[in-house]
């Protein structure tokens, strides 16, 4: 008889590896395979640098000025972790954090009138900032106090606002906030990429601002964290968790067929053999006929030999270019990290520009961001389709992750994980479910 698994996972992106870890910890028999010879799928960090040149079909070898190829670990998708966000919670509950070291991103900046300004990270910085006028600052402060005290579960903190009905536009009005403050709050703190949120109920926005300020309060400087050696460490860490709890790992495994009987998945065929399963988790690249395209994201990886101008020589930072500053519908993000994170050769910086594609000339759209980075030593441009599953997998028991979107953190990725978990198990996701059930460490502490 062929071997039977509870769950087969295809692709070792972050979503797949976290789900694989949760399933193994909870006693499911998991087989996890990837058609690539490396971990991470779309959320891999590419190393050595030669492989990045090959991947983007650049002719020849990296020049000698790029240093040693294996000193590079270049993310394909730029994201940071919110210090108080869901991914950090998952890392702590699973103790995967043990395998990794982090650094705080040194600063967050926002683009206004062609210049960049630091997003204040302390009250003193806020008072000194030229982002808004003095009277606005006072009203803004009152608003932030309201947000800090707001508790979704305690109506006494609502002050007459119905979080599920009052729109964010109305809430801004209540605090008499001007356009500059509104732009700043929505895009630099709540991290919305468009202005669609203004007419939605204000609860989500308030919680986003809370997440930002609580994350900022953890380490100062910025609300963002980044793992040494690149984001590709994250899926590897969760894959290790899954393996410790019995998960079987295979890379470089061509997937020939996903076998479906009577509308339901029964197994996966690879190299002429069949492994049976009850449920299947995979990324969109394994099931092209079961996903649909909902948009495109342009990402440009830029290698620099200098820190970005006007960032106080930060070795890492984020820059948000709000949509209305450049006549767009969605914001442009720049995420920069450097040799300080063991992702680049000594003295080198990696800035990744990304945004949702809005026109037929996406490279033109991101020009304002590239201008902030000049001179750029090498560019790697990619335009990726945003795929989402066509159905919820209820019937087929095939659960497909969503492609990584243009957001600057992992909150939407975690929402997707929680959602898939619920669809697979029928119960609400609970972080407690991720805790290691048995000791796997021996010797003295």
């Amino acid at each position, binding site marked *: 008889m062929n071997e039977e698994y509870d769950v087969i996972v295809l692709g070792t992106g972050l979503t797949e590896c976290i789900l694989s870890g949760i399933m193994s910890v909870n006693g499911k028999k998991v087989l996890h395979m990837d058609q690539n010879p490396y971990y991470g799928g779309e959320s891999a960090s590419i190393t050595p640098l030669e492989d990045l040149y090959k991947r983007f079909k650049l002719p020849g070898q990296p020049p000698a000025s790029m240093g040693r190829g294996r000193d590079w670990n270049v993310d394909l998708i730029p994201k940071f972790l919110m210090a108080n966000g869901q991914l950090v919670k998952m890392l702590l509950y699973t103790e995967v954090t043990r395998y990794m070291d982090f650094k705080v991103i040194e600063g967050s900046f926002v683009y206004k009138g062609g210049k960049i300004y630091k997003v204040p990270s302390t009250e003193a910085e806020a008072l000194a900032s030229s982002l808004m006028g003095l009277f606005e600052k006072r009203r803004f402060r009152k608003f932030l106090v309201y947000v800090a005290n707001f508790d979704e579960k305690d109506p006494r903190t609502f002050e007459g606002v119905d979080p599920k009905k009052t729109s964010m536009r109305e809430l801004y009005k209540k605090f008499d906030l001007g356009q500059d403050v509104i732009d700043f709050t929505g895009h630099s703190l709540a991290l919305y990429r468009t202005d669609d949120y203004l007419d939605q109920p204000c609860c989500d926005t308030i919680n986003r601002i809370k997440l930002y300020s609580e994350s900022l309060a953890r380490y100062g400087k910025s609300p963002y*964290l980044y793992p*040494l*050696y690149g984001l590709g460490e994250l899926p*590897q860490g969760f894959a290790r968790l899954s*393996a410790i709890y019995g998960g079987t790992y295979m890379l470089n495994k061509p997937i020939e067929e996903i076998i479906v009987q009577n509308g339901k998945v029964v197994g996966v065929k690879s190299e002429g053999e069949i492994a049976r399963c009850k449920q299947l988790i995979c990324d969109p690249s394994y099931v092209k006929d079961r996903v649909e395209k909902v948009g495109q994201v342009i990402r440009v990886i830029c290698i620099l030999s200098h820190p970005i101008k006007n960032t106080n020589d930060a070795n890492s930072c984020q820059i948000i270019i709000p949509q209305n500053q450049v006549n767009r519908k969605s914001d442009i993000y720049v995420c920069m990290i450097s040799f300080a*994170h063991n992702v680049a050769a000594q003295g080198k910086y990696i800035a990744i520009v990304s945004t949702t594609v809005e026109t037929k000339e996406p490279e033109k759209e991101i020009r304002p961001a590239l201008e902030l980075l000049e001179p750029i030593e090498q560019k790697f441009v990619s335009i990726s389709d945003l795929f989402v599953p066509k159905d919820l997998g209820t019937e087929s028991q095939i659960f497909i992750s969503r492609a990584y979107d243009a957001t600057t953190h992992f909150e939407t990725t975690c929402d997707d994980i929680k959602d898939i978990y619920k669809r697979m198990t029928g119960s609400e996701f609970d972080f407690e479910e991720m805790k290691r059930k048995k000791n796997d460490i021996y010797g003295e*502490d």
Partner: protein
Amino acid sequence: MALRELKVCLLGDTGVGKSSIVWRFVEDSFDPNINPTIGTKLFVKILPLSATFNSLSCSFSTGQVRASFMTKTVQYQNELHKFLIWDTAGQERFRALAPMYYRGSAAAIIVYDITKEETFSTLKNWVRELRQHGPPSIVVAIAGNKCDLTDVREVMERDAKDYADSIHAIFVETSAKNAININELFIEISRRIPSTDANPPSGGKGFKLRRQPSEPKRSCC
């Protein structure tokens, strides 16, 4: 006395006794079926690299947990060396060890079984893998395990020693079962580790994530 934390990663084919060597070193014990809670049943049967889905059935049953991490502190001259030993968690079986596994290792112990020629011939692949993913100045040790089983020996000590010398690696034949050369292996690793960090990471150190002080404390291991 200065305390240095030294990460050590284990390499070698499934079933050669990687976990048993560490188990002997850390706990000074040996169990032919080792404690099933650490899933060492896993190591009993050797699978060829071309193992099929079908032959996986000898693996690990669900609910078991693999030992992933073992520690032991020993004194070496005027330093304390705390060995943080990472086990493969079974990811070596289909050559799916992640680069993370090798990262920051001060030493690697590559184990083969003196009674199984093929575990010695794959040694070169593990060395290549280590050169590709491991830190450049990593101390390499080769351990020919199960040296108590001399009557079924397939690998000559001389051949293994010559190979180890050719790649400047430490070489010992060990028996986790009879506690032969296990401590010696780690003492030799201590001796070969440069006294100061020769290759500090260029970007400096990061930190480990911790829970907020306000959150309830959990027993951590």
